[in-house]
């Protein structure tokens, strides 16, 4: 496979992931904010106050982790090590988002801090899951070409 074809394939995979998973998962928040803006001025607390972003972040990380776990290593130790590292990082992010979600529900006074944290964790999980998806695609290309790093 030529390098340009490989790059095109990866770009398409990345774009589909960004459009239909990352941006698509924010659609309910956009619709909700549009609906609320008809009646009053909308704040972040109104949209993200219930910890919805934590749930979305958890889902993104879980989906990318599932993709990572589906990689066929074919005795490629390097791909295997990187995959294990990425899965471990995904689990860490999932633990953080889950605990933060529980904090959001249990401690309403800390909502300002938690909303900032929700934005950060959403950015982290979106970025990290995109990297994981790209890595999965490369691993598949390497396996299909019979190349071991």
């Amino acid at each position, binding site marked *: 496979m*030529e390098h340009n074809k490989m790059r095109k394939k990866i770009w398409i995979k990345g774009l589909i992931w960004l459009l239909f998973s990352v941006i698509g998962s924010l659609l309910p928040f956009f619709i909700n904010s549009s609906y609320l803006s008809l009646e009053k001025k909308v704040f972040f607390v109104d949209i993200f106050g219930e910890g919805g972003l934590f749930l979305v972040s958890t889902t993104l990380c879980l989906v990318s982790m599932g993709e990572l776990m589906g990689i066929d290593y074919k005795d490629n130790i390097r791909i295997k090590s990187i995959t294990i590292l990425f899965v471990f990082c995904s689990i860490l992010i999932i633990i*953080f988002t889950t*605990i*933060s979600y529980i*904090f959001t529900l249990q401690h309403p006074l800390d909502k300002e801090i938690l909303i900032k944290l929700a934005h950060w*964790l959403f950015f982290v999980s979106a970025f990290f899951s995109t990297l994981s998806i790209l890595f999965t695609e490369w691993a598949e290309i*390497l396996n299909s070409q019979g190349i071991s*790093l």
Partner: protein
Amino acid sequence: MNDFVTLIYVVTSIILVVSSIIVFITYREVKKVLNERISAAKKINSEGSTVKYHKTFFTLVNNNTSNSMLEDLILAIFLHSSTFIGVQPKKPSLQH
């Protein structure tokens, strides 16, 4: 609570930086390996694996008994195998 939030910021920042570096390095290596393969394949196609393989073929034949049937057999095997792996060799001359 604040300690936990700080811990999350620190750990996730490290995860982002490390994973970005790993993915970038992997991408560069994949690109390098694929480019090497492409240039090697182009070289074989342009110069003709024919030259290389025919050299081997004639060396083999010259070092052994000059048997026309053997030559034909080896040549047939070579042509078929090279067609099978996708190389398009020019038909060589047996005049040597």
